């Protein structure tokens, strides 16, 4: 083992990669509980299949596009195709861990991001269309934006702060989810019949496992087992808790009862919002970020429903709005007292950082929206996006997979 590799950092990073891996099947359960029982297998399959698909895509070409040697600030080169040259020695991004460990940690981010989008087109998307969409989206949306922010690209050069993926993961998936919901159209029966969650307990379990895995997502992004990881861990937990409390309270005042599903969704919104900020803010800021996530995401979802956009599992409201709020909040609350390698935000006398964060948010929104629209339209022409109405009524478990989730 080369001398500069830290056993502690490597152990924490590999454990964090495993924690983040767990988030994708956890997301499957979170989403699976929210759909009707005739679609639960198909919904869980979205996440499980993506775990497999992107695991292979990432080692073959995804990692090199995102993190390979920079080409004009836009995309990584093909130098590390099929992980050629990515081995046990440290790479350029993390001097104290094997390059392979860094690569596999990043792989898990690439896996969960397209899985987040699946909540928007749940209960009506053709499986073949989903497969092609995921492969194209990962290659042409996720990999370039990951390069822009983390791989030496133009947003990173500009000074945009994104500790664990507010722009790269959550804005891209949230905005793409909104575009997918608009392009696919509403589910059969939307607005006429109750499209109720079939198992709220499954959703709460999924949210809890997401919360658990998120410690790897954020604290692991320190890429070291030290104080920065500890701070990220603490602010992550605090923001999740505060957002869950806030969402539950707002829904209680708005609809007359403290919603269990609301508390679960609120926790996820808080986790999303603290993601870009977790390596730059203190615990007081994390309380305010959690508060904002609860209010803004809840409000956005009410607005989406009022506009009759069938974002089936509220991906845009939670991830798009939560990610944008978190990215902007980073520009407000960031402090070098937490991370000496970063910059101060607005309240510490550096208003320019908020402007840079706004540019990163806008670039992520515009690029992911346009590319997602183009990809979906192409697939619609050649494959068809939606299942026929008769198959949608029958349910995707039977029509797409010829299986049933429950025999009781």
């Amino acid at each position: 083992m080369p001398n500069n590799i830290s056993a502690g950092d490597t152990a924490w990073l590999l454990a964090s990669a495993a924690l983040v891996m767990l988030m994708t099947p956890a997301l499957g359960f979170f989403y699976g509980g929210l759909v009707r029982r005739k679609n639960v297998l198909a919904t869980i399959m979205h996440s499980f299949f993506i775990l497999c698909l992107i695991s292979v895509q990432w080692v073959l070409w995804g990692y090199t596009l995102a993190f390979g040697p920079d080409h004009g600030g836009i995309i990584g080169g093909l130098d590390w195709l099929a992980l050629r040259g990515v081995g046990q020695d440290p790479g350029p991004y993390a001097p104290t861990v094997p390059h392979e460990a860094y690569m596999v940690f990043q792989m898990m981010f690439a896996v969960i991001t397209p899985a987040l989008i699946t909540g928007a087109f749940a209960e009506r998307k053709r499986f073949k269309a989903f497969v092609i969409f995921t492969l194209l989206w990962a290659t042409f949306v996720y990999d370039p934006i990951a390069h822009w922010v983390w791989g030496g690209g133009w947003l990173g050069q500009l000074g945009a702060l994104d500790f664990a993926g507010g722009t790269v993961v959550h804005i891209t998936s949230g905005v793409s989810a909104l575009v997918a919901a608009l392009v696919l159209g509403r589910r059969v029966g939307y607005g006429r019949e109750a499209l109720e969650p079939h198992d709220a307990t499954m959703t709460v379990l999924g949210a809890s496992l997401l919360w658990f895995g998120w410690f790897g997502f954020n604290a692991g992004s320190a890429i070291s087992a030290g104080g920065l990881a500890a701070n990220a861990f603490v602010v992550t937990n605090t923001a999740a808790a505060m957002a869950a409390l806030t969402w539950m309270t707002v829904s209680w005042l708005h609809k007359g009862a403290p919603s269990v599903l609301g508390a679960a969704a609120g926790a996820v919104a808080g986790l999303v919002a603290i993601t870009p900020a977790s390596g730059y803010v203190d615990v007081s800021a994390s309380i305010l970020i959690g508060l904002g996530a609860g209010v803004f995401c809840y409000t956005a979802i009410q607005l989406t429903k009022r506009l009759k956009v069938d974002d089936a599992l509220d991906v845009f409201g939670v991830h798009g709005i939560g990610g944008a709020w978190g990215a902007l909040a980073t520009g407000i609350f960031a402090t070098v007292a937490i991370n000496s390698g970063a910059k101060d935000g607005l309240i510490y006398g550096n208003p320019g950082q908020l402007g840079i964060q706004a540019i990163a948010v806008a670039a992520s929104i515009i690029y992911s929206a346009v590319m997602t629209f183009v990809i979906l339209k192409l697939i619609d022409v050649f494959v068809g996006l939606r299942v026929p109405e008769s198959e949608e009524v029958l349910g995707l478990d039977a029509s797409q997979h010829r299986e049933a989730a429950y025999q009781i």
Partner: protein
Amino acid sequence: MEILAFVSFAVLVVAWLVAPSRGNVAVVSHAEDRKAA
């Protein structure tokens, strides 16, 4: 900023005190009807 953090948490606590606590009236009355029967 610490003050804002305390205030925001205090606002939630106050909201819990004033929030409705009657539950779902329709479901409750249905259950009471069944118990009476």
